[in-house]
């Protein structure tokens, strides 16, 4: 890098010049926020607090969306009517030391909405665990190696389900021990065949973690206006 380029990157709070290998599509939530800010009238821009994310009402000047790098886990616990069991892992190691994490939101996406409860009336149950134990790929995590974070039931599938995981993400950062999450979706009842009961869960797409951080260097440093 030329001296000018490295100084410019440094002024933008970047230690190196990024070189993406397989760029993913821009998450719609980031594109909407970017477009909204871009179209703000100039006078409003100068007044807006650049160190706060209005959309989530939290301090922050950096928003990242982390794709899930986990893997599916095969049914290893008979009798639990599991439709889906997946390990979720979000690599937060890219966050720089001077960044303070202020919010983390997990999004579970399905490819479609269902506008009416399924005819059989079965209800799904969703459980999210914080994993506190490494596990081999595909092998079910042991029950004692996890802490229940979320447990809720739902009858209708929505395109996306959102969960606030700020506490867990802050813990990952402080302890530098991020062993991911375990997502389970099961049917709560029903004695007919599991495959048919779980059909609508086949529309599961993926999960992602939106993280907001505040760069102490850049938010503290903005010069007092005249």
């Amino acid at each position, binding site marked *: 890098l030329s001296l000018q*380029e490295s100084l*410019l990157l440094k002024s*933008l*709070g970047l230690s*190196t*010049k*990024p*070189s*993406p*290998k*397989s*760029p*993913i599509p*821009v*998450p719609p939530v*980031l*594109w909407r*926020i*970017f477009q909204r*800010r*871009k179209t703000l009238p*100039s006078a409003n*821009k*100068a007044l*807006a607090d*650049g*160190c706060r994310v209005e959309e989530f009402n939290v301090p922050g*000047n*950096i*928003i*990242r*969306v*982390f*794709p899930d790098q986990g893997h599916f886990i095969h049914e290893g616990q008979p009798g639990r009517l599991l439709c889906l069991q997946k390990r979720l892992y979000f*690599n937060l190691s*890219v966050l720089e030391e001077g960044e303070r994490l202020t919010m983390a939101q997990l999004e579970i996406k399905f490819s479609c909405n269902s506008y009416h409860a399924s005819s059989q009336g079965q209800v799904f149950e969703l459980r999210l665990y914080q994993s506190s134990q490494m596990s081999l790929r595909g092998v079910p995590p042991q029950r004692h190696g996890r802490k229940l974070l979320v447990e809720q039931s739902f009858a209708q599938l929505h395109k996306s389900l959102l969960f606030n995981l700020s506490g867990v993400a802050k813990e990952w950062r402080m302890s530098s021990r991020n062993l991911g999450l375990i997502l389970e979706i099961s049917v709560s009842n029903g004695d007919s065949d599991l495959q048919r009961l779980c059909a609508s869960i086949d529309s599961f797409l993926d999960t992602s973690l939106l993280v907001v951080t505040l760069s102490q260097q*850049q938010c503290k440093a*903005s*010069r007092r*206006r*005249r």
Partner: protein
Amino acid sequence: NAHHAPVTPSNLCKPRRLYISFSDVGWENWIIAPQGYMANYCLGECPFPLTAELNSTNHAILQTVVHSLDPEGTPQPCCVPVRLSPISILYYDNSDNVVLRHYEDMVVDECGC
């Protein structure tokens, strides 16, 4: 892409157009948006007497008076940004995550002495 237009008849201190193109600095493969933006810069004279639209500080007024009395010894006040606005940049980081980052003070809206 600095616009090197000759100093206009009104060479008083004011913003000048400066468009920063990220592809000019070879950043187009990791910056998603914008592709560039109008950053501007300040250029121009701060002559005696300073008029109100030159956004001057009291000190600048004082300095122009001294400059008018002793041009060799005391320079004119500087023409600097006095109102700036931020921009947001969408980019890929080294782990292919999409990042939306907000940067303060990136666009010169107004200049002053």
